[in-house]
């Protein structure tokens, strides 16, 4: 208990600790999101607007092709349903802590409560969130879907998620982050701790679709054991005030591998500070960080970092940024660090406008300038992402079409 008290004390002190990157939000400007929200038994009873909100972040209310669903509304879990009980365990983190005594061994072990004011706030709020576990050797055929939803104006939402994929298991998770219709501003603080055990695979897709005045500060760390794979797709195509995130993958076991794909569009007045970091702590580990970002007037900072601490590690970092407006900024910051001899880390970064010869080449085939730009932009983003859920494709197409129109 004394230890808990110490952590709490440190977290209290850290409430004033500014984060290393991104605009500094004043936590007192936001009310605390409610823990008392209406529970939704049947997702299809949600009104059309709410269903549309969910669909836009890859969450299908009819649960077709899903293993289970969980919604976190403000600071409480408002829906849980599990269709594949054999291959997945899904519940709120608070319920999991009550059910399994060992959950405490995974909670706040990767992310430190006193890392910055946002982690401190989440710790002190005893944030709830999702708990997803794939038991050893189990492979759910369909992904688990979750949605983190801000439902009230000017509140700060604190979320704490834990995913555990046990030895030899495979799990796909889609997490959508959004605001309810009518909510314009708020603050989302999300802690995610993910454990990929020996020979296990976790495919994680996150789709952001926030209101224009929302600040987003996720803190994510993934721990991958021997032969484990962590594949992440991170998608943010809609206007948002500010996102600053720096998910870190620790490759702790021999042969562990990770690929982090990011596609993002910074609209006017949006600031996207999107980093990814991989720490190679075991031999023959591998990583690919691929980022494709576009600015139509906002700011993109694409950080990519690889730290090689073990022999035989191989990593490649690729940051490409398109600038489609004079008001936009693209900053690519690749960092490579080798601390042993037998290591291969490389990076490729490029920022700039769409090449004129590419646009005209397509125009010479009879495409209008808008069609040509749209096709190039779509292709550019396609490289950064694999296996986008079908439900999202129309929405992504519409966004790309708008980008095409706005750049002519």
């Amino acid at each position, binding site marked *: 208990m004394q230890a808990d008290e110490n952590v709490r004390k440190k977290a209290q002190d850290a409430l004033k600790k500014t984060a290393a990157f991104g605009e500094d939000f004043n936590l007192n400007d936001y009310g605390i999101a409610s823990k008392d929200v209406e529970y939704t038994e049947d997702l299809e009873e949600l009104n059309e607007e709410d269903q549309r909100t969910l669909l836009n972040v890859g969450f299908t209310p009819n649960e077709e092709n899903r293993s289970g669903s969980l919604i976190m509304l403000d600071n409480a879990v408002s829906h849980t349903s599990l269709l594949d009980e054999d291959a997945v365990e899904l519940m709120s983190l608070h319920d999991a802590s009550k059910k399994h005594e060992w959950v405490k061994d995974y909670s706040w072990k990767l992310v430190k409560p006193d890392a910055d004011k946002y982690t401190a706030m989440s710790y002190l709020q005893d944030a709830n969130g999702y708990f997803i576990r794939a038991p050893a050797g189990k492979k759910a055929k369909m992904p688990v879907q979750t949605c983190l939803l801000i439902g009230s104006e000017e509140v700060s939402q604190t979320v704490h998620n834990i995913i555990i994929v046990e030895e030899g298991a495979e799990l796909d998770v889609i997490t959508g982050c959004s605001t309810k219709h009518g909510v314009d501003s708020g603050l989302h603080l999300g802690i995610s701790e993910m454990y990929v055990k020996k020979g296990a695979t976790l495919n994680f897709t996150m789709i952001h679709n926030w209101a224009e005045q929302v600040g987003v500060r996720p803190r994510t760390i993934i721990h991958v054991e021997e032969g484990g794979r962590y594949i992440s797709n991170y998608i943010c195509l809609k206007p948002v005030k500010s996102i600053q995130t720096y998910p870190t993958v620790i490759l702790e076991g021999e042969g562990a591998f990770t690929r982090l794909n990011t596609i993002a569009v910074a609209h006017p007045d949006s600031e996207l500070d999107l980093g990814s970091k991989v720490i190679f702590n075991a031999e023959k580990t591998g990583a690919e960080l691929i980022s494709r970002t576009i600015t139509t007037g906002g700011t993109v900072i694409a950080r990519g970092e690889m730290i090689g601490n073990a022999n035989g590690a191989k990593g490649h970092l690729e940051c490409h940024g398109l600038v489609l407006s004079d008001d936009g900024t693209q900053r690519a910051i690749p960092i490579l660090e080798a601390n042993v001899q037998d290591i291969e880390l490389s990076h490729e970064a490029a920022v700039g406008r769409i090449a004129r*010869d590419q646009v*005209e080449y397509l125009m*010479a085939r*009879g495409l*209008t300038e808008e069609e040509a730009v749209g096709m190039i932009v779509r*292709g550019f983003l396609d490289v950064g992402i694999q296996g986008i859920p079908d439900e999202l494709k129309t929405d992504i197409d519409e966004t790309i079409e708008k980008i095409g129109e706005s750049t002519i």
Partner: protein
Amino acid sequence: MLEVNNLTVEVAGRRILKGVDLEVETGYTNVLFGPNGAGKSVLLMTLMGFSGYNVTEGEIIFKGEDITNMSVYERAQMGMGIMTQRPPNLSGVKVHDLLKIISKDLSGTEELAEAIDMVRFYERDLNVGFSGGEIKRSELLQLSAQNPDFILLDEPESGVDLASIELLGTTIKKLLKMDTKCAGEKFKRGKSALMITHTGQVMDYVEADRGYILCNGTVMCTGNPREILSEIKEQGYEECIKCKLMKM
């Protein structure tokens, strides 16, 4: 089909073409000869309307309309198409997706894709990692979907092995609808083209109607393409330049 009058073109502030006059009648395939650096590719890129090729004098008349200031898109819409030598890489843009946008009816194109072994390239990123021959085949496939009335061909046989030249030659012949037997029909139904060739090999498959020699940015000579080719092969371009100087 095409009429070029006194065309003067600058690229990056340097004058490359000087008062070029040239014509391609409907149904004709005309050939452009000339040494490296003569301005042949610049002429084709200018005709298609690519940026960076600034017309400072003269005019381009296409199907009776002055297109000198029209965009690439407008020229393509009017029925002009081009096979360039070094197309840009388009990562993420799949060959098949582009074909589907170019044309709604791909039946003929699908058939051609089979014939020139391009089906396996459908899901590839356009031009990325393509060999010389693959680029040519991909360009022809796109032109087949586009089906233009007038095609600009920039050295279709360059960088292609001998066996593939036959395939390219017969494909171009098909695109130009030269396979019709009636000579009179050819000029009514057939397509027109302006083609750059160094070796003349493609002329074994594509019937050329008229030849032009371009040297130092001006047209030196025009006449029967096969006669011009054999003279160039015998005496080189220097004789053409001398001949022109003597006439002046």
